[in-house]
């Protein structure tokens, strides 16, 4: 196998190509690692019995080689050298922050934004001011090394005073315990005062002991849903020791039962989160189409505008994706709402009572908006970063964890829905809207300015589309085609739920989402979608007015 030296000049040249997401990511890392650094500082101060810098430099020198195999060896060396800075070096190496200057100095990049980066000496930790990134060369690693580093760090962290680190380490060691780690582990377990860590370590040890064929270790794994545990048990079950095998099998049986339930919950969650996306996309239509009877084919593009607003916000506030995201909620609403007003004034008002023409005209608008984005901004997708509090997932148990970004979207959808309900039920606007939809002339004669109501309603619907866009920017591409992918689904949801009925939209959206996710595993993604569509088509034939139809004379109109 042949290895390439790291092409740093090229990397440097190309950095602008995607500097910005890279920055965001790096910043994110920094946030995570602040404690680490602080730790590094004091460690280096109050640890005088460290070996000489030359020795340390030798250790690091060994890392700066082309062959990944040699790098692996070098890492091993660092681990075995009980240098107190070893852990930090490994961490920095893992994060790609351990770099080397032209003059061969090993430095830690503290922050990699802009052309010149502040760095600190890898050995002493003293700040060295800023150095142009062109004069820095990163010490590259690959996945194999990443794994090695993580395990190594885990072992070191076992003894760390920091609880979080010990937890992470214990998590990591599950299934990676080998003979020479085993017996120090026993003492560690005794010394450990945190239950969670201890439990994990016990399991880790138990797995190791089962591999050695010790039957009594099984009891310690009872009821654990962790995949690694399952793997260990599976191995044991297929092992040649019959007694152990039977025991393992029975243990597995219990676990499988548990897993089924969790899987069911998982699917439900998936369904709801997909449903929430549908609801968000459709709820705006439910207002413009359902309440006003206006077919707005440009709805999808309003969603797109919302998403682009998020992107723009993040451009304005580089390095603060979270703040930008929160700010873009009102911003997105505003932008889309204004666009909506423009559409209403510019096109729709001339087509009152001609729904089909409205449909065509607004479709034209959607084409224009799309092409506008393509020419003005770019045909390429835009980068929208997820703030770190939205990435990752919420750990329920070893077999079930819920992805955070989707949970936020789900919550957001419900909030938006509740808000709309309030507006429609409690506010003057809602009252007027309902009045106008029931009987325009009458409402007019009662002094309601129908035109104004139209504008407000349409703005509201469009604004909500904008909100949907903000949410979607966290789940999918932000590009000119974003809208198209949702318009048909949105119409389906509204029609299925029953036009002019917000509750209908909510129920329809969520249930369609769940149906889709339940079908997907055995029908496949494509077929599932088709089945759902056909189902709706047939359903509409049976009940032309959807799930929750409006009754009586009002419906005749």
């Amino acid at each position: 196998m042949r290895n390439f030296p790291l092409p740093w000049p090229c990397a440097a040249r190309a950095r602008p190509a995607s500097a910005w997401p890279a920055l965001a990511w790096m910043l994110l890392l920094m946030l995570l690692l602040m404690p680490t650094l602080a730790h590094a500082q004091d460690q280096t101060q109050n640890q005088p019995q460290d070996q000489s810098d030359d020795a340390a430099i030798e250790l690091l020198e060994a890392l700066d080689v082309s062959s990944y195999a040699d790098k692996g060896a070098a890492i091993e060396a660092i681990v075995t050298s009980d240098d107190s800075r070893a852990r930090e070096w490994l961490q920095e190496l893992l994060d790609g922050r351990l770099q080397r200057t032209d003059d061969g100095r090993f430095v830690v990049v503290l922050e990699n934004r802009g052309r010149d980066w502040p760095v600190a000496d890898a050995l002493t930790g003293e700040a060295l001011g800023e150095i142009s990134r062109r004069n820095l060369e990163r010490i590259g690693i690959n996945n194999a090394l990443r794994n090695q580093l993580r395990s190594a760090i885990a072992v070191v962290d076992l003894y760390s005073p920091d609880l979080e680190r010990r937890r992470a380490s214990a998590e990591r060691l599950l299934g990676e315990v080998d003979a020479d780690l085993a017996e120090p582990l026993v003492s560690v377990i005794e010394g450990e005062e945190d239950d969670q860590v201890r439990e994990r370590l016990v399991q880790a040890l138990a797995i190791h002991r089962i591999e050695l064929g010790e039957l009594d270790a099984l009891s310690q794994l009872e009821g654990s849903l962790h995949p690694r545990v399952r793997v260990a048990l599976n191995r044991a079950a297929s092992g040649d020791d019959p007694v152990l095998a039977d025991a393992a099998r029975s243990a597995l049986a219990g676990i499988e039962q548990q897993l089924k339930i969790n899987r069911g919950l998982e699917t439900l969650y998936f369904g709801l989160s997909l449903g929430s996306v549908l609801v968000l996309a459709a709820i705006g239509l439910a207002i413009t189409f359902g309440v006003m009877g206006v077919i707005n084919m440009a709805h999808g593009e309003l969603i797109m505008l919302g998403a682009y607003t998020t992107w723009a916000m993040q451009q304005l506030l580089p390095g603060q994706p979270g703040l930008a995201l929160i700010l873009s909620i009102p911003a997105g609403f505003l932008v889309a709402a204004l666009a909506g007003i423009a559409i209403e004034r510019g096109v729709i008002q001339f087509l009152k009572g001609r729904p089909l023409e409205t449909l065509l005209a607004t479709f034209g608008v959607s084409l224009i908006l799309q092409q506008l984005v393509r020419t003005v901004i770019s045909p390429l997708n835009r980068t929208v970063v997820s703030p770190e509090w939205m990435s990752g997932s919420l750990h329920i148990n070893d077999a079930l964890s819920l992805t955070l970004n989707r949970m936020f979207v789900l919550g957001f959808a419900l909030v938006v829905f509740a808000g709309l309900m309030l507006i429609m039920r409690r506010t003057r606007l809602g009252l007027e809207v309902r009045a106008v939809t029931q009987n325009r002339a009458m409402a007019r004669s009662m002094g309601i300015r129908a035109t104004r109501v139209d504008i407000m309603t349409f703005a509201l619907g469009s604004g909500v589309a904008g909100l949907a866009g903000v949410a979607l920017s966290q789940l999918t591409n932000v590009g000119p085609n974003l809208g198209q992918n949702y318009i048909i689904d949105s119409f389906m949801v509204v029609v299925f739920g029953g036009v002019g009925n917000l509750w209908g939209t909510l129920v329809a959206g969520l249930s369609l989402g769940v149906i889709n996710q339940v079908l997907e595993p055995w029908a496949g993604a494509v077929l599932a979608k088709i089945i759902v569509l056909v189902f709706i088509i047939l359903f509409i034939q049976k009940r032309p007015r959807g799930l929750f139809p409006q009754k009586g004379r009002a419906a005749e109109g």
Partner: protein
Amino acid sequence: MTTFQRMIPVTHTRFPAKPARFAAAALVAAITAGGVTQVMAQEEEDPIKVGILHSLTGTMAISESTLKDTVEMLIEQQNEAGGLLGRELEAVVVDPASNWPLFAERARELLAQEEVDVIFGNWTSVSRKAVLPVVEELNGLLFYPVQYEGEESSENVFYTGAAPNQQAIPAVNYLHEQVGVERWVLAGTDYVYPRTTNRILEAYLQEEFGVAEEDIMVNYTPFGHSDWQNIVAEIGRFGSEGKKTAVVSTINGDANVPFYRELANQGIDAADIPVVAFSVGEQELSGIDTAPLVGHLAAWNYFMSVDTDANYDFIDAWIEYTGDEESVTNDPMEAHYIGFNMWAEAVRKAGTTDVDAVKDAIIGVTVPNLTGGYAAMMPNHHITKPVLIGEVQDNGQFDVVWQTPSTVAGDAWSDFLPGSRDLISDWRAPMRCGNFNVETGSCGGSTAAEEAEAALAE
């Protein structure tokens, strides 16, 4: 366009009725009359026309518009270097607008109307399939720069992108040998390229590495699929069975972002389950948040991060041409770079832009690629390429972690598909056959061959 080629379609067809026969006669007369003078004129001062057939609008514009710029840049450079055969090169750009029938129509326009000497174009398989009959009928030259599913060899098309054996197979070799992967997820968008590639890989994994049925999971999703929850969860479960697992992704374009995001969010890390992608390059990365992708792999024949002077020169030229510091280069661009130079070389060799002459001359032509090696045009109209595996870095670039020791020659017909095992392609005389069946020892009946014979008969 010389006279006899244009007559081929006419003189070698059965006619529905008398008027048509008269038509043909008239046409032939017209052509031979007008045609010859044209040729005379053309040879002297007319510029050499280079057709560019890439979508500038519609869904494919994202990927294809940069290729159009690339060819225009190459033409510019060529002209600065004094053109070709002392004649200027002139780019003829048309926009097929990501609409497949329109691709065929535009190709016809380029060949019949504009009478271009060569076409550089197409991205999607379907667009190539749409253009193919036109190019064969009007005997044009098409250079196709994108990795594709193989299973095709046309006398008039030159495939400068990777065939499956130049991308997919080396990639799984790497995963198997270097990473020790035993369990495979073949995830792809539901169209021909992933379908074929995955079929080949399935067969390959089972035959070469003896991978068991239950250790291969195949999954197809529609274009632009955005809800990956279920599939990713499934991959996670599939990967947590104790064996080292990897995902071989032929997922196309827009579907990738949500896919990688979901992977990251569900805590599936590149170190646990690496994903090797065949359709994710610098261009694609420039449009997305790379954070979730770091450490995942891609297999290409070129990376912008490749450390060679040729590459740096190309990048400099490109950045200068686009005037955008941030613009990136990618694999299909290199393919065009190679293809263009090969064509230019062949034209010099043949001393004319005449299609048949160039077709014969180009086989065996060797030009430098951007990764420090050379690319040669094989008799099956595919080229030799090195295969590189890169790891995604947080800066949207790839860190090359592995490379085939030598270049790999493209296979038109995969050895791992029952249908095409016995087929070979060789466009040199006397064989002149795109799908010669070594079993039956006969040429599988592609009309391209017939027409070629017909042409010789003239």
